[in-house]
């Protein structure tokens, strides 16, 4: 039996909008992933949790403009802990140019902007980790 994909997911810093990120964590659980939702956290604590939970994926939510500073900071700090294999996903409200720059210049594996169907996020995460999605129980 294959193991579950492990995801650590957090709201970045002081951002207060928890609706979207909490929903994503619920839908990832529904899709058979092991999800640790940290609530609001700063980069140091997020990286620590990724280490402790042996995460495959770190998911970060930002709807308040801190994506360009704190997102890359998480990637950098993961690298410093030897966690380069952890894939960092981001989601939230941001300019399309910023989203592109996060992916191409700052080591964010994938940014999902508003209106992304949950199914697309699930599918992308399973493909990037390379663990097959468990078949729903009949």
């Amino acid at each position, binding site marked *: 039996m294959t193991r579950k994909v492990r995801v650590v997911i957090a*709201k*970045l*810093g*002081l*951002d*207060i*909008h*928890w*609706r979207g990120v*909490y*929903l994503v964590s*619920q*839908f990832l659980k529904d899709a058979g992933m092991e999800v640790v*939702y940290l*609530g*609001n*956290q*700063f980069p140091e604590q997020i990286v620590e949790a990724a280490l402790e939970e042996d995460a495959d994926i770190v998911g970060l939510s930002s709807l*308040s*403009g*801190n*994506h*360009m*500073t*704190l997102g890359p900071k998480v990637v950098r700090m993961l690298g410093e802990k030897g966690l380069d294999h952890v894939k960092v996903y981001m989601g939230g*409200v*941001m*300019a*399309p*140019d910023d989203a592109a720059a996060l992916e191409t210049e700052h080591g964010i594996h994938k940014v999902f*902007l*508003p*209106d992304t*169907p*949950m*199914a697309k996020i699930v599918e992308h995460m399973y493909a990037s980790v390379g663990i097959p999605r468990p078949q729903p129980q009949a």
Partner: protein
Amino acid sequence: MSAKKNPLFNESGIQQIETDHAAWFETTLGQADRAVEGRFFTHSGIPVKLLFTPADIKDLDYTQDLGFPGQAPFVRGVYPNMYRGRLFTVRQLAGLGAPEDCNLRIKYLLDHGATGVNILFDLPTIRGYNSDDPEAEGNVGACGAAVDSIWDIDAFFKDIDLGKVSTSIVTHLPSTSIVIPGMYFAVAEQRGTPWSRVAGTCQNDFIMETCVGSAPEILPPAASFRLQCDVVEWICKNVPRWNPISYNGYNLREAGTDAVQEVAIAISNAIATAEELIRRGMHIDDFAPRMSFFWDLHNDFFEEIAKCRASRKVWHRIMTERFGAKNQKSLLMRFHVQTAGVTLPATEPYNNIARSALQGLAAVLGGCQSLHIDSYDEAYSAPTEEAALISLRTQQIIQTETGIVNTVDPLAGSYYVEYLTDQMTQRITAAIGQIEDLGGLVKAVESGWLHREISAYNYKYQRSIETGETKVVGVNYQPAEKEACCSIDVFKYPETYTRQKAKLERLRGERDPRKVRECLAVIRDKCHSDENLYPYTIAAVKNLATLGEIEEVFREEFGLWAFPLY
């Protein structure tokens, strides 16, 4: 209501309609239409029939149930002449960068006909941190303006007469409402404007502090509620034209509730506040006239209009029957409206101009006192100047070109709207009763009930979008074959951190550190007393204590509360 009903329709007329309606349903209506009857509901779950008739509102007593505008039960509006007398205030939000940047945006909106100011803060300010605190990294001046000290409020309103403008200060949390409006009052005093002439509103809602936003550090519900009541009590006694609380259904709705819960929770908070202030020795009519509300106008057009009308009715009933209020102003519910940001997708963003205009139209048909129409670029950033101007112009079009402001409550008498208004009234009343059964709103929040409600609502709603049951045009319904957008012009926040940091350094050099320490020590001490904290926070800001320093005292003395969901 104990008075005997005097129904508008006579019994035999209703019987005739019911008979004819049944016949019409069986003989004139097609089989396909008959088959789907019973499957339509409003967003909050009220059954919607294909056709409404007088039979659906057969008990309607015009005088008792609707009345005249400016008279009980205020369903038709809070003022006798409504918009002929006073147009709804065009109150667009302005909040970005440093206070100096915001000052320019405020003047821009005032120069283009805005009649009120609505200022919004960045997250470090909202959550009570200084711009140079490590927690603030990445958020300074984004999504709102930074405020660290009384100097910033002065800069916000440079060349603006605080005795003339009506200002809404969007301090979400009680813990910052006891500080930032205090800075505003202190600036007014320094400029020689008496507090009797200072007008405006602050938000001050403990639900914002404990449920709507999540945060690494939040105050416990009881402490946040105490600060909320301190703010209301002190402002009612000292700044008579200021609305010390705006019960924020809006952000709660955006976080995830339906229209019924939005209103029920806001009114339950008002009930809790009233009970506490009465316990402190005030009379209901000392403070109820200054309470205001803030609604979110979502997509379900008629339900939202019915919500506005019903909320006034429920409020009137609670004020008279439960609290025995006598002052006419205590009985009428005034509310600000913002259109629903949560309904605005990033896909094909110009469509949002249409969505927001329809929601704004519903707000005016619902009789709002002031309005903010969201901008089309909501899902990308704070609005650009161009986007903000379109929102302002949308309001002006509703006010001057549609003709709907010339008569009061024009949808009254619509069988559907009156049916919905009655349904909303009943459902809001029942939801308030449910919160009472949980021991009141503070206890309900402490138990985690509201967090679970929000989470369950969101999950269900998102599922309905995923399955396509809820349709979003251009997103999951008729999506464009290739992405039409996007060369959207996105607002770039001006660099703020270094400017605020330099200002804080100068402030720390110029102030008397001993006085600041003394002021903070007094606040620390008074946190554990029954005394109102407002006089002490005002003294602290006058002596140049920063927002972050005062909030740190609250965090240390009241302790922190874990978000009760995970």
